[in-house]
């Protein structure tokens, strides 16, 4: 496919140096985001998806965190190598972000309108009055009732859903090319969640931006994402078209994740789980990081680390020996060892 690539992340590694050693929170993440598409980054807590999203804007507190390797190419310009000044022009302008906690992500003592308007003044150099008017318009666009009154209020006067709308308005203020949404609906209740998702989809159509949607909620992914990158232990293990992924998951971890979803059509007594636990980011195994929990694991999985490789077409990437030629040979080896 010849879709325009907006953002490409190659071998991103963000490590944290602590007294316990080096935590490899993000350890070789690769993904590609096309124009106008939504890429979901999914994975369980601690798999490094939030650190990945913060790394994209270089918002990792240093020390202890540091991007130690990799490239983040936004329209072919590497964010990792940018100088502060250049980076600031990208932040909130071409690349903006919505955070998980609308309750704490807005400044508690600055009127919400001003918090939006200051971004507009900064990046678009509009005079105060016009920037304010634009902030009010944005609040209206995200569906906040009586936006003129609300703009003058401070966050504590708004509900959680309203605050997340404000966050979205703020992130969209400069019509970014890429919007990173880090679990934007996790802290909201279900009806508000649906509204916010709907809103994001609408705005994406209006503005034509690309979205990186970070979540642990596979239901949300199936609703909003075109592409999905599944993360496990600091790496992407499967990167595919969302429809295909839900139909025929390739990586055993993805298979496990999907199997653990409760099915509304069957009367299940017990929920399925993936046995075992995630390896510590301080001490990853040499081989495949999922091997210890994988029902298909063989010797080769523990001896060697698989790469994220294309299988079939360029849109499908998976990090598993099962989808390589090595798998066939490894079967034979195994049969030789234990007949």
């Amino acid at each position, binding site marked *: 496919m010849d879709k325009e690539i907006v953002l490409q992340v190659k071998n991103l590694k963000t490590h944290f140096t602590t007294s316990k050693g080096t935590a490899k929170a993000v350890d070789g993440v690769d993904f590609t985001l096309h124009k106008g598409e939504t890429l979901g980054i999914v994975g369980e807590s601690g798999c490094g998806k939030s650190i990945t999203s913060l790394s994209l*804007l270089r*918002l990792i507190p240093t020390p202890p965190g540091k991007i130690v390797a990799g490239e983040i190419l936004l329209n072919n310009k590497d964010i990792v190598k940018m100088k502060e000044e250049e*980076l*600031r*022009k*990208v*932040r*909130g*302008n071409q690349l*903006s*972000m919505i*955070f998980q*906690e609308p309750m*704490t*992500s*807005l*400044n*508690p*003592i*600055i009127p919400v309108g001003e918090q939006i308007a*200051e*971004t507009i003044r*900064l*990046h678009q150099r509009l005079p105060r009055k016009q920037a304010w008017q634009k902030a009010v318009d944005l609040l209206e666009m995200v569906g906040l009732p009586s936006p003129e009154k609300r703009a003058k209020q*401070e966050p*504590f006067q708004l509900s959680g859903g309203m605050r997340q709308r404000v*966050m979205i308005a*703020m992130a969209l203020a400069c019509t970014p090319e890429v919007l990173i949404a880090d679990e934007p609906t996790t802290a909201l209740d279900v009806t508000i969640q649906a509204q916010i998702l709907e809103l994001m989809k609408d705005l994406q159509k209006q503005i034509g931006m690309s979205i990186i949607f970070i979540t642990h909620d596979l239901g949300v992914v199936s609703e909003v994402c075109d592409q999905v990158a599944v993360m496990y232990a600091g790496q992407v293990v499967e990167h595919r078209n969302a429809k295909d992924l839900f139909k025929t998951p390739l990586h055993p971890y993805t298979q496990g994740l999907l199997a653990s979803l409760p099915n509304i059509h069957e009367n299940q007594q017990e929920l399925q789980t993936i046995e075992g636990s995630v390896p510590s980011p301080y001490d990853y195994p040499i081989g495949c990081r999922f091997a210890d929990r994988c029902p298909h694991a063989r010797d080769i999985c523990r001896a060697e680390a698989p790469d994220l490789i294309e299988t079939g077409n360029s849109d499908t990437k998976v990090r598993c020996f099962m989808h390589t030629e090595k798998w066939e040979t490894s079967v034979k080896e195994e049969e030789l060892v234990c007949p």
Partner: protein
Amino acid sequence: MFLFILKRLAQIIPVILGVTLVVFLIMQMVPGDPAAILAGEGASQETIEQYREDLGLNRPVVEQYLSYVGNVFQGDLGNSLKNKQPVLDEILLRLPITMELAFYSILITIVLGLAAGIISAVKPYSVRDVSVMVIALLGISLPSFWLGLLLMYLFSVKLQWLPVAGWDGPLNIILPALTLGVGGAAIVARMTRSSMLDVIGQDYIRTARAKGLKEHFVIYKHALRNALIPVITVVGLQFGSLLGGTVLVESVFAINGLGRMIVDAIRTRDLPMVQGGVLVASLVFVFVNLLVDVMYRAVNKRIDLN
């Protein structure tokens, strides 16, 4: 807001009662007979008795107190035992001097304290931070009378840049104001630092950075205003101890302010003078606290004053 201020002003009445009662009781308990002191050493018993009667000190204590409080509410703070002049006149003469000193001291406390606190917090655990905090620790530990003497020795005696004592010109203000303000500045600096560090770790600071704001906008617009909320309280409290400090500093630098007036009055057991002085100082403190609460509300609208 208006109702709040009115309520707080009404609280002045119990403050007056409390302060006068405590001072009155203390002055009754301390050794030394005002009449005997006024009459002078070696005065005959008759003379002392005469003084006592003239001053009304022979009346029952409760009666003395009640008549004093009654007069206070009519704006009469009584007359000095020593020179028979109205206490209020003397206070009105001295209060502006102390207020001027207090104003410059609190200015030093705020400016120096905030600056040091911010400098520290922006780069925590750096050499700069550690040295500022060590100096702040010294500032807290040095007693003001000693610091005053030290400054006086250095700037007035050795370097001869500034006058030793007195209250004749703007140069006279510098040393006493520094002496009084430095301790508070150290406390404000430490408070500002910890409050700033706390705020800088908050999610909304990350949001501000994600918007592409320049670092000084992040610090001064987004972080400092939030960090100031607890600092304002500390500054208000500091003003109280600063008023107490004027007693010492005015004595060290020979400034004829309210503090020194109170010290002199205590020495001569000039009861009305002591009471008047302490009362006025307390009222100033009450007003400053009211001001602090109003400012608090201005910075943080979440606070419901009522």
